[in-house]
């Protein structure tokens, strides 16, 4: 009944996680949750990279995953810094209430 796991299983899982993250980024108003959804998307990418790294027996994919994790950490730090500065100035963390540039 249970088939052995192939690379395809991992690819489908990563596509599903990417979709969940995309829905989170597009629909939520709370910026903290939007940042978390971006982490989910980057995790889906990492699963894909590691899967192909193993599929082709080549470690280069895992090197790329390391760089993705590095950039994700930097992005989160800067994003949370912006969030704190925004909360100090506008008293809100809702993405659609920050509409100073909108007319």
């Amino acid at each position: 009944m249970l088939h052995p796991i192939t690379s395809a299983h991992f690819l489908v899982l990563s596509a599903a996680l990417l979709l969940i993250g995309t829905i989170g980024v597009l629909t939520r108003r709370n910026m903290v949750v939007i940042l978390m959804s971006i982490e989910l998307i980057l995790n889906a990418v990492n699963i894909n990279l590691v899967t192909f790294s193993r599929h082709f027996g080549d470690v280069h994919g895992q090197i790329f995953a390391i760089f993705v994790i590095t950039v994700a950490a930097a992005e989160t730090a800067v994003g949370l810094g912006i969030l704190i500065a925004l909360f100090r100035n506008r008293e809100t963390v809702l993405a659609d209430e920050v509409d100073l540039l909108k007319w």
Partner: protein
Amino acid sequence: MADTILFYIFAAFVLGGGVLTVTRRNSVHSALWLIVSLLGTAGLFLLQQAEFLFAVQIVLYIGGVVLLILFVVMLVNLDETARLRQFNKAWWVALACAAVVGAELWYVLSRGLETLELAEAPPANAAVEGNTERLADVLFSEYLLPFEIASLLLLVAIVGSVVMAKKRI
């Protein structure tokens, strides 16, 4: 056989944690479910013999990124936000876009699975040297310049976040 069962357990962690991260009202709950999702991803890395990335995932993502998010959630007062509407007015547009992307992904994946026949690859001389050694060999020879540039990026991110969080910019 054990691999199959473990895969489905970790997949349930990843997807269940992801869905709950996106849908919870309280940001602290979201962050805690994000930890579950990231743990599942770490397990998937272990299943694919990426032991170094497994350790990096736990130490850097769960120990670093999620902890940072939790600190900010505690620092910023989100109690009022939790009582407000959580989703956009245009949520149906977003869901339609996501459905289109999902259909595209499913089309590409289903075509690829038929033609490529993605199968289990034999572990490439994993017994000769460990995953970490092979990674280090490639990272510090072929990818030395990107490695240094990444350190520069981290420096910029540190300075940037400190400047952003300062009282007077």
